[in-house]
């Protein structure tokens, strides 16, 4: 991960040479158009996410950031273009592709409301095919990394929005994916939560993962980044 810092939240960071680091996730010529007489939300979007790099994408509401992340995660399939993780694509060997992906959706959805926090994380670890031998350690580690130990036995629907966001983040990071796709990860987090999130992003980058962070506002971006883009009219533009 580069040491470039974003000191002023709303100013654009100087972008270093980001061509180092092996490519992990390659998005090429992505095109997506929603039903109806609208222009495509993504038109020939290409992006390479490299090992150890943190990338930020901004853009106004409804511009297509979430659609791009969903395509990158394999939740949506490209109408044109491709998503590749080495030899893997979401369409072929999809389960191997998805094992490498950690995804955080925007908002506060996707939790099993009446499960306890530990049950929630264990449930996700099993869905992610985390080997039995590592499961307990990774669940415990996730609780610690996002400071959730004191809530481990509490039901999710009895927790605050910020605490729920920490659980959602813990799930995205739990299985140590090579690709982390985060849609507005700072949502509802307090300062401590934000600090924990940044620590985990730095750690993930250090172990060679790539992180893609999307948010509409510059002030929400991660403190350090290797590349910044804005999405406008279906195209990605490098922020200088």
């Amino acid at each position: 991960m580069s040491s470039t810092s974003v000191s002023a939240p709303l100013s654009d960071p100087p972008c270093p040479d980001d061509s180092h680091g092996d490519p992990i996730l390659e998005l090429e010529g992505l095109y997506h158009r929603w039903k109806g007489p609208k222009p495509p939300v993504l038109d020939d979007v290409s992006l390479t996410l490299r090992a150890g790099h943190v990338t930020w994408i901004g853009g106004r509401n409804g511009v297509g950031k979430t659609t791009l992340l969903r395509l990158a995660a394999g939740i949506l399939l490209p109408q044109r273009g491709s998503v590749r993780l080495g030899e893997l694509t979401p369409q072929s060997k999809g389960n191997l592709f998805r094992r490498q992906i950690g995804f955080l959706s925007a908002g506060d959805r996707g939790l099993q409301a009446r499960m306890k926090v530990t049950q929630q994380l264990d449930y996700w670890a099993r869905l992610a095919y985390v080997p039995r031998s590592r499961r307990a350690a990774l669940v415990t580690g996730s609780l610690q990394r996002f400071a959730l130990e004191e809530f481990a036995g509490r039901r999710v629907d009895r927790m605050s929005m910020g605490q729920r966001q920490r659980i959602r983040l813990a799930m995205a990071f739990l299985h140590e994916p090579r690709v982390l796709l985060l849609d507005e990860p700072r949502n509802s987090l307090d300062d401590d939560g934000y600090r924990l999130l940044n620590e985990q992003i730095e750690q993930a980058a250090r172990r060679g993962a790539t992180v893609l962070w999307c948010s509409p506002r510059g002030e929400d971006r991660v403190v350090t980044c290797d590349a910044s883009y804005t999405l406008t009219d279906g195209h990605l533009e490098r922020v200088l």
Partner: protein
Amino acid sequence: MSRMRPWCEAMWAIIRRDAILFVSYRSQIVAQFIGPLFSITLFYYISHVLTSKTIHSPGGYFGFVIVGLVIVQILTISMGVMPVTVRQELVSGTIERFLVSAHGPINGIIGTMLFPLINAIFSGALLLTLAAVIFGLPLATTAVLAIPVALLGTLAFMPFAFFLVALVMAFKQASSVAQFIVASIAIVGGLYFPISVLPGWIRWASDVQPFTPATDLLRHLIVDTPLAHPAGVELLKLVGFIAVLLPAGLLLLRASIRYGQRTGTVAEY
């Protein structure tokens, strides 16, 4: 086996998740146990005023209809609950977990069907037990053989559930279709009355779905109702329906998910 282990563990995780959810609503458990008792009582007294030469069960109409009630119970819980459950997964965003997990959306959705099916079979067994213990329904000595046949029948029902879930994935709603299917099966599958009383023009529908052989076999094994055809033939019919319908149902489900992923509607609700 090592490749199957994570798959089995993920399926177990989904069953456990749904069990946790189910028992967390205690009134739901009570309702599920009390509901069948009212149905049995109702049909017990109806059977007292009914005499029919077309029913040859040793237990009379009560013995005949009780097996139909078991199947209605299984259909209502499995088919009625399935589309609602998947719709809830869409609304709460938990389906996204399947879409980004190694387990994948199809396995995830099949997993969500398992607890309702186990629950439905358990409820059916409870209903039979109540009928035998409280109302003296004479169970045949072959009743225990109904368990493997019920499991086969469940496999035969699953494609219809896949169809309903595929509708939910594509169009976001299927509850009214589920009610229509259960009501249609109750009529042409002979759940409340023998299919021999149906007019000839509709009777063909009894032969082109798996519910009729499943119901006939279960009735034969549980309350000793005579079969129109040898048991082996009925069993072959059931297996044949499974062999044709199950892959077709899975393909339809896969196609509906892929459609949603391409158009972007998979995450809509």
